[in-house]
């Protein structure tokens, strides 16, 4: 069972407490953007087999959105961090590098 620590309330929440929210760090394109960018923002996803950054909500808990770094091929969790950021913090990236040298995910690797 997937267990993620909520970075706000510090609780180790198991899956039934959480609601998945899809890929994290999407750049939000709106009016004025190109069709290509808007399409990618709405539909195109990394969907990697390996390191993945994603959004979760502590739905049956404090109710806040947060981010998690996880491996989709092993279900290993590298860490969670608050959502008030546009990119994963250094300690999360270091934690991933320690476990997955040479990992790639968009421009964050």
């Amino acid at each position, binding site marked *: *069972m*997937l267990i993620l620590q909520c970075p706000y309330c510090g609780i180790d929440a198991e*899956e*039934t407490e959480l*609601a*998945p929210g*899809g*890929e994290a760090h999407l750049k939000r394109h709106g009016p004025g953007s190109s*069709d*290509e960018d808007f*399409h*990618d923002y*709405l*539909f*195109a*996803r*990394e*969907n*990697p*087999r390996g390191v*993945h950054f*994603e959004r979760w909500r502590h739905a049956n808990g404090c109710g806040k959105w947060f981010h998690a770094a996880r491996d*989709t*091929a*092993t*279900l290993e969790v590298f860490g969670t961090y608050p959502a008030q950021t546009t990119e994963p913090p250094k300690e999360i990236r270091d934690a991933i590098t320690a476990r997955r040298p040479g990992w790639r995910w968009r421009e964050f690797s």
Partner: protein
Amino acid sequence: MKRYSAFAIAREALRYHTGWERAWTSPEPKRHYDVIIIGAGGHGLATAYYLGKNYGITNVAVLEKGWLGGGNTGRNTTIIRSNYLQDPSAAIYEKARALYEDLSQDLNYNLMFSPRGVMMLAQTHHEVRGYKRTAHANALQGVKTEWISPQRVKELVPIINIDGPRYPVLGALWQERGGTARHDAVAWGYARACSRMGMHIIQKCEVTGIRREGGKVAGVDTTKGPIDCNKLGLVVAGHSGVLAQMAGFRLPVESVALQALVSEPIKPCMDVVVMANTVHGYMSQSDKGEMVIGGGADGFNNYTQRGSFHHIEETVRALIETFPIISRLKMLRQWGGIVDMTGDRSPILSKTPVENIFINCGWGTGGFKSIPGSGWGFAQLMATGDSPLCRAFSLDRFKEGRFIDESVAAGVAH
């Protein structure tokens, strides 16, 4: 290759069954093929089969990183139906269902197609309206379905509890010629027929890279060495994103786990397929007597072929209310498959940004039933560059806003 027949059984019975041949050959890959299909599941093999049968293209290799039919083809709940709302979906799923009718004869392989009837229960007033609408749409599409009363539901499925306190059965959408087939046999039958046409099915051969020259596909790198091709078909379901990345484009697809489970075998008690979409559960009884149960998909990206236990718990908890008889059944096995979900829950059968690479993916939770139709249409697309069955399912529909919104029918259960 010798045909299977009653005569063949008699002949082999007289010589201690020493004359059976392998159903398909396992050759080493050649240096070049006209067409390479990546993925020897039902859809990939069906594509290869119809490329040969309908278009005479037999210099074809089907590459498989694991074993034949070992992905979602061997992991689904074997349900076949075509009672969809939207015209493009009804067309391709009904094509598939119609092909299933005499596919055993066509392939000379017993697929155990059992058109026992598929019943989709309406347990809320919204579903009543939704399914009546689908029945009307199906009448216009030439798909034979009908709206049936709770009493008729009870006649067809005596073990059902139609006046459950929370989710009473208010009627059902009934497709008489829907049903089930033996999933492994579909892969094996197509593989045997492809092999008979001289195609190469190469198992344990993982594609590690896709080579391009001037915006066109040149070939693939594999664990068995590089292989060149003129045209490449990606038919790998859950791993479509991984291969698209190799080919240099992204897809509107996310891979999640979908689970199923079977009970211990019991005496025959239900001879139709019942789907209860409000409670996320569906059930049929296999020829061995096991109750085959499927439920909802997980919500997060996952490639492990393992799902979350609480989804199974939810499914079984919901089904017990509608089928009180199963409350004391023991469950034998549970497994998961990786399904590729698109934004509108409809598949993608399309050209790609790279010339001569074609992709067939996004079947999500509903791939098995569509195998023959998908192969038929996708072979036409690969051979001729266009297919009426596939046109609406192109990759650019997301950019153009031409969604095929089947989430009512396809997002929950199959």
